[in-house]
């Protein structure tokens, strides 16, 4: 054990004391939250150039309303009242009579104007939009633009036009505008958790459930575990290959058993991951408390996170160290990296289906398959719906057994392969070494 710890200490110190570790520690969350951060930072970056839109109104009932709404919007939203700066584009609506003889040629002409940059878009409103039930074909509304599918103006048009059309329909059946307002009132359904009893025995109203809790907590823990596996276990492949290639392995084997060598390396990688994970978890808790979001801290999940982290690193670390021992050079290691990473990446692909239906038998079965258990079980435990308590325990036992198997088989492969030169790391060789030792 002494020798294992000494190797682990060296591994840990050489990893943690490098600038690379500090940079990785900072960069990882930046990369993880990179897109969210970019959206936050660049949220003010709006194209404020005016948008000119032509409206072809076959119904004759909508164009004016759009123009009025656009004017009202331009008045209210385009210029920031406090700073006097233009913060949004103005919508300039131009009403054009539709060409009923050759509508296609007309659309082409307008499209060409868009291509030339004279227009942003054009909207064509069918003649029967007020009563579409009569003839759906003539009740269509079409928005033509370069980027119509993700154009925010289309969304604004949608709301404005439909709101108006509903009022027209209500008015046609004799509803007063005042009543129409009430009829059209829209109520949101509040998402709530479950009612519980607090420590004092009082019934506690359910908390408002938010997207942050439903998706944020499981996602953050899931990605954190993924990153820690990448940091603590993945480097083993390369590192052992280098030690073999540079003949350091033989020097070390003059002092310790191959198994002690491998175990020391895995333990060192584990210590590196635990250090980084502790920094992130402690930092996260501190930050959430400072921001008054202490309610979102999943204290009951954190022990599971660390338990699965430890086992995942032992499991993947031993396999990767053994694979590293089978490599003769950097090219071999490169060829093995992708297949070696598959068990870590598959849970990434299964992320969304498992997160949406954590209690499904599909999610349950996958999360009980040991190589996937740490990441998928953690995802399922941290989802607000929760899962039966036996499942994480059974998963944990499965991972412990699989980790022991990995250490045993990895140790055997490592011992045979670490001094073997010129033998390619073929699956058949690796399996033979694992079985025969």
């Amino acid at each position, binding site marked *: 054990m002494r020798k294992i710890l000494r190797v682990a200490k060296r591994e840990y110190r*050489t990893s943690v004391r490098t600038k690379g570790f500090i940079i990785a520690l900072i960069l990882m969350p930046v990369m993880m939250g990179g897109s969210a951060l970019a959206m936050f930072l660049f949220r003010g970056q709006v194209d404020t150039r005016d948008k000119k839109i032509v409206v072809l109104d076959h119904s004759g009932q909508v164009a004016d309303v759009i123009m009025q709404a656009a004017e009202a919007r331009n008045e209210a939203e385009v210029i920031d009242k406090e700073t006097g700066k233009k913060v949004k584009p103005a919508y300039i609506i131009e009403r054009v009579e539709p060409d009923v003889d050759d509508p296609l040629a007309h659309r082409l002409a307008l499209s060409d104007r868009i291509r030339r940059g004279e227009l942003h878009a054009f909207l064509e409103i069918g003649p029967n939009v007020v009563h579409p039930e009569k003839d759906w074909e003539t009740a269509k509304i079409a928005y033509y633009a370069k980027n119509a599918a993700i154009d925010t103006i289309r969304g604004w048009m949608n709301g404005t036009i439909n709101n108006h059309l509903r009022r027209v329909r209500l008015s046609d059946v004799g509803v007063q505008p005042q009543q129409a307002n009430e009829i059209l009132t829209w109520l949101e359904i509040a998402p709530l958790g479950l009612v519980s009893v607090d420590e004092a025995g009082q019934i506690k109203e359910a908390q408002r459930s938010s997207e942050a809790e439903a998706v944020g907590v499981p996602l953050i823990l899931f990605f954190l575990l993924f990153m820690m596996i990448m940091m603590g276990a993945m480097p083993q492949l390369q590192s052992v290959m280098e030690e073999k290639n540079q003949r350091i392995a033989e020097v070390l084997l003059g002092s310790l058993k191959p198994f002690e060598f491998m175990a020391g390396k895995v333990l060192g990688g584990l210590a590196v991951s635990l250090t980084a994970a502790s920094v992130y978890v402690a930092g996260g808790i501190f930050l959430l408390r400072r921001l008054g979001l202490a309610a979102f801290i999943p204290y009951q999940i954190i022990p599971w996170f660390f338990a699965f982290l430890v086992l995942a690193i032992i499991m993947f670390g031993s396999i990767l160290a053994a694979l590293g021992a089978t490599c003769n050079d950097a090219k071999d290691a490169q060829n093995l990296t992708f297949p070696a990473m598959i068990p870590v990446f598959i849970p990434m692909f299964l992320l969304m289906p498992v997160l949406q239906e954590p209690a499904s038998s599909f999610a349950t079965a996958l999360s009980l398959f040991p190589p996937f258990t740490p990441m998928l079980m953690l995802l399922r435990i941290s989802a607000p719906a929760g899962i039966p308590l036996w499942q994480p325990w059974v998963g944990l036992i499965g991972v412990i057994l699989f980790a022991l198997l990995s250490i045993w088989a990895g140790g055997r492969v490592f011992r045979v392969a670490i001094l073997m030169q010129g033998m390619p790391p073929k699956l058949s060789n690796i399996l033979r070494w694992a079985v025969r030792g």
Partner: protein
Amino acid sequence: MNVVQLEHLTKTFGSVTAVNDLSLNVPQGSIYGFIGPNGSGKTTTLRMIMNIFYPDSGKIEIFGRELDESAKDRIGYLPEERGLYQKMKVRELLQFYGELKSGRKVDNQVDDWLERLDLSDWAHRKVEALSKGMSQKVQFIATIVAKPELIILDEPFTGLDPVNTEAIKDVVLELRSQGATIIFSTHDMSVAERMCDYIFMIFRGEKVLDGTLASIQDKYGSDTLRLRTEAGMTALQDLEGIEKVTDYGRMQELRVQPDSDHQKILAEVMSRTRLLSFELSKPTLHDIFIRIAGPEAKEANHA
């Protein structure tokens, strides 16, 4: 007492027999030289003594006990191919290797050895900054820093200049005088002749020589005539009773057939040219090595 005792050791890799039925005893406090051509089984034998390779059959006893992992703590091992962590600092690296072996702090010993081998200025530099010779010395310190009782050195002098070779040789002799047992493999026959109490030669996995230099040379007898003549090589053509003539330019070496008379040969040479000097001696280790493993031996084997 024998520090190392090998009995009928055999090791094969696939269809290749690297070591075949090898038995060997290394007495305590001796310097034992392992010689043999490349690929003859020296390193495999050393790795088996280190418990890095397991023999297919046979028995290994170290310090009077059957070999197990605990013996490694008492053995210093310098492998043929040097392996140092390039990114570590010299002092930290030596502390690591020393602590791994001995289980205690070796800071003082590390500093002493760095001083002794003139590496103190490099103690806080990374290994990658060292020259080949310096790396070699660092590796040597790593082997001995934990004060092992048995020191196994696989080609310890390759890549060293004469000054450093002397420095390492002095340390090896000093460690022996302090009671350590040394096994080293070498291709430098003159070093083996000068340093080793016993010489063991392995060839194609088989033991072909084992004993003191004198006992090995005795086997071959005084069959070597070294001559300097005015005519040089031309005067030595077609001499009777000679097995082989080796020309060293200013000096020629004649291997005399076992039943030939040295006097007659000398008289014949003197009748052909003026003799400047002569010496009748035993064959050198170099010569014996060549006789066993050189092209001559290959021809004899093929015949």
